[in-house]
């Protein structure tokens, strides 16, 4: 799309395409990193400015259970070959669901203020909680 149309120039029955170019195969077989997104897919947009707190991922404690992947409302957990590899910070809204569903002890995902430095936080990661008597 060369020029973006305004809402009042819109024709009835208009269609937005998520991908550029011709699609032969069902997108379910193309991983997100190989897709040719068009400027109309919300994949190219960012909601990072919604976030007040952000999740920080510490891979030392992660067991790749993928609970965070399945319960992420914003498709922001990047999983490749059954391994969790990181967080998509363009689409994460900082809801904290991933931290709540993380089963490890200590958690491998924790929420920090948006301006916190990731490396410092990982260096001072909390240690294992002892079970309360």
């Amino acid at each position, binding site marked *: 799309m060369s020029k973006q149309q305004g809402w009042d120039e819109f024709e009835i029955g208009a269609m*937005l395409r998520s991908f550029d170019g011709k699609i032969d195969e069902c997108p379910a077989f193309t991983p997100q990193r190989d897709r040719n997104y068009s400027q109309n897919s919300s994949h190219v947009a960012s909601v990072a400015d919604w976030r007040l707190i952000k999740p920080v991922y510490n891979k030392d404690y992660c067991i790749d259970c993928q609970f965070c992947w*399945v319960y992420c409302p914003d498709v922001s957990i990047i999983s490749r070959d*059954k391994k969790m590899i990181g967080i998509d910070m*363009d689409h994460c809204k900082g809801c904290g669901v991933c931290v709540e569903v993380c089963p490890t002890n200590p958690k491998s995902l924790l929420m920090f203020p948006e301006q916190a430095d990731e490396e410092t936080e990982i260096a001072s990661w909390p240690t294992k909680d002892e079970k309360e008597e």
Partner: protein
Amino acid sequence: MSEIKKIKNLKEFSTSADRFEGAHLLCPGCAHSIIVREVLNATNDDLVLAASTGCLEVCTAVYPYTSWDASWIHIGFENGSTAVSGAEAMYKALKTKGRLKQPDRNPKFVAFGGDGSSYDIGFQWISGCMERNHNMMYIVLDNEVYANTGGQRSSSTPIGASATTTPAGSVSYGEKRNKKDMVAIMASHNIPYSAQVAPNKWKDMVKKIQHGMNVEGAVFINAVSPCTTEWKFDPKDTMHLADLSTDSLVFPLYEIIDGHELNITYRPKNIVPVEEYLAAQGRFKHLFKDEYKYLIKEWQTRVDANWAYLQRREEARV
């Protein structure tokens, strides 16, 4: 009949390529997108989707963006179901005439709607689709309130909930009518499959969706979707609320095959008192005042009675 996608465990499930994109405008912690992702990832087939007006529709199709990587249509508040049934009828006609370019592809027809557009406004349309037994699936994202327009009550809102049109205060405890049993109503159309699902039980959900997509005929799915804005809880607690709703049996998970054969698909090991489910939500806060405490007891009795009814029905196979 197409091949069913094999999903043995969550690790295998996580290799799915999402067809629902981020940067949609649903609230942080909204369960709608969790349900939609679980549904879309349950299959590798082409999808023809529709959405009735509601949170899901207004938040995923904000010009100039779309969050869907499959054919998706929106028409009006009430006719998400009819749009998909029309597409399905057209597909069938073209297939019979041999005019499809790729006849070996097996698209699945799925419509999404909120509880407002399903329980109230689109009720007649859905009923029509189920009665005509189109080869489609209708999924209700049931958050028990018109969340998109500011939290008005719908006929899915349960007793005691405070909504903006049934506010709790000195004279009223909020909504006074009980929730409509939509799954039972739709099952009475004698459709091949209807079920209730919850996002926290992803395996149960995927199993039901796959069964529903591969069955010939109309399928009705009711999915509980905890709403962080209108149920008034912290966004991070979405899955906790979903857990409470299934474990307290407020939303029992079951399926009805051919309109009569009822199977309970999830029996909680530790049944949580309904009081805990109510206490976790701001919309039931007033029920914990002394004058309204009797309502909590009524809630528990009602939930227990419903659970007993489901179990009896499962045994009797009627």
